[in-house]
């Protein structure tokens, strides 16, 4: 562990800069620390590969066969040398569809987490810092959302907002707002009572300044660890929404939708239609989960020994 690990205070004008500096400090200047972080490295590599593969395969011609236009394969045939992961009922190549099918998942996951992180933590800072009636109402509202099954809420919301990428970002993002609210509010309540905040206040700093410059940066560590786990969960939620038919419209390759499609041919034993998109979802979600594990270890070295 390097010496700067225990340092939690970040002096930054805005949160965005704080987040960026935090990442840079933790990852590049802490290369020394990263050397021992096998979990974090494996996670980063997995996620990087997925983003790279998904990005590249959006360019026409970089998949072995075209994911939507190619229709000359034998119908519903199991994995073979010509078609590594088999073919579907429309004579398309499953491998080509699977490696290019992560677009919606990745965009929605990042979009939703960015949305909920912003809204949730801003509300959390305000609520925790001001206290009083506003805090009570916000906390109660957030608890009401938090205690309700997030999957059901996301499905209801996406049904209201309609299918597609943007509605999915809003619905999945909304569901995670209470998570950030709770994390930041709890941190703020702790920070608020510290001597240095008292000192800053004595000097005459206003509330906004105290929140932005002194309270918010102290909650960044907690937010970062939570968001990686959220990304892992978001991948699964997006897959579930697509599976239920709220994702991208048909010919576009998409893991969740392709699984739903494969379900129709389940009785005939076409296992490859379901298996491979699912394995991709697992791998990507696992990648984010490992990053979360790694960041938690970095942020809280004590946790390493007791990690579950």
């Amino acid at each position, binding site marked *: 562990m390097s010496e700067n690990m225990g340092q939690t205070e970040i002096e930054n004008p805005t949160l965005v800069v704080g987040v960026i500096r935090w990442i840079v400090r933790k990852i590049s200047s802490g290369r020394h620390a990263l050397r021992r972080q096998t979990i974090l490295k494996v996670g980063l590599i997995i996620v990087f590969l997925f983003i790279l593969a998904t990005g590249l395969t959006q360019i026409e011609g970089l998949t072995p066969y075209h994911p939507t236009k190619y229709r000359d394969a034998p119908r519903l045939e199991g994995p073979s040398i010509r078609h590594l992961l088999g073919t579907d009922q429309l004579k398309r190549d499953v491998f080509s569809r699977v490696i290019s099918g992560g677009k919606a998942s990745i965009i929605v996951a990042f979009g939703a987490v960015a949305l909920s992180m912003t809204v949730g933590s801003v509300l959390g800072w305000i609520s925790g810092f001001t206290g009083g009636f506003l805090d009570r109402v916000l906390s109660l509202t957030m608890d009401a959302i938090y205690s309700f099954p997030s999957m059901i809420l996301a499905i*209801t919301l996406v049904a209201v907002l309609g299918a597609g990428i943007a509605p999915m970002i809003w619905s999945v993002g909304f569901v995670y707002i209470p998570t950030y609210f709770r994390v930041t509010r709890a941190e703020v309540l702790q920070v608020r009572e510290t001597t240095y905040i008292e000192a800053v206040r004595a000097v005459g700093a206003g509330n906004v300044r105290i929140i932005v410059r002194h309270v918010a940066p102290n909650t960044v560590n907690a937010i970062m660890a939570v968001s990686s786990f959220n990304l892992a969960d978001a991948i699964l939620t997006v897959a579930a929404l697509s599976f239920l038919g709220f994702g991208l419209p048909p010919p576009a390759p998409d893991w969740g939708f392709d699984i739903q499609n494969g379900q129709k041919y389940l009785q005939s034993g076409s296992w490859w239609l*379901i298996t491979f998109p699912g394995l991709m979802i697992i791998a990507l979600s696992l990648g984010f989960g490992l990053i979360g594990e790694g960041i938690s270890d970095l942020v809280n070295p004590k946790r390493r020994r007791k990690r579950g």
Partner: protein
Amino acid sequence: MGGISRYILQRLLLTIPMLLILLTFVFLILRVMPGDPVMAMLGGRNVSPELIAEYRHRMGVDCPILVQYAEYLGGIIHGDFGDSFRTSQPVVKELFLRFPATLELAFFGLLFAGIFGFGSGLIAAVRVDRPIDHAVRIFHIGSFATPLFWFGLMLQVFLAVKLGWFPVAGRVGGRIAFTFQSITGFSLFDSLLSGDTKVMADVAKHLVLPSITLGFALTGLLGRMSRASMLEVLDQDYVTTARAKGVKERIVIMSHALRNALIPIVTVFGLQFAILMGGAVLTETVFSWPGVASFLVRSIEGRDWPAIQGSIVFIAIFISLINLIVDISYSVIDPRVRY
């Protein structure tokens, strides 16, 4: 009034604003939903404007939103959640008809998660840093990352279709369904009442795959928490003392550590139950399980406002009750807790 009954009352009173917030939220959001329930019900083709207006009136969606809201709240106080647009039956009746199926599934899912999650966490903690510990932890992290519906479909493909060990979907087999009398709605219980071993075996077989699927959603979470909590407890002085006294390791774990390790897990049981209900939506959809969660999904597809509102409030009330029971049960598990 004693401490505990006052606590229960306080909790119940706190539940009301939470339910009200959720209810209002769902009510408002449905009103901005793009689909029109009247058109969804009438089919949308060749319908005269008079008929649409008549239905609009009959379904009560022609009033101003505030009036609708007031009427809806008034109904709920009397336990009336309105009539379903699709089936014209009271929503409460529809929900209670399907509730046993969901409860049955949740119970066996929880049982599975409890046995495998807690069991695997326990083994990992006792054999910490050995190969079995690493294997169990990989299994836990893997189960976090697995989409529930995919896991269910995999079980269907390989165990039901390919091997034929279990039925693919549903609650009772086709032939038995003709003669099967449902009395309580809990099919396993009903089959026991019927006394017919064939029926019992059939119903039990139908339960296996959905329960495993739903339980799998919690296994990893429960397993990780059990492992962490058990490790914490095994580090305590009283465990060292017990070992120093020469108490057998098995007894140290079973009687000294186990109960204390359970406390933090039970604490978040309410949250786990919420995850379970979310998982039930997907499990019931995959296995054509006629429960509350799949009813909600179909209501959303059919723009059935009263049914959507009713299901959500119903699920929220149910989860609040579970949370209350969990809170009360702390004092039973952990005698240090007093209200």
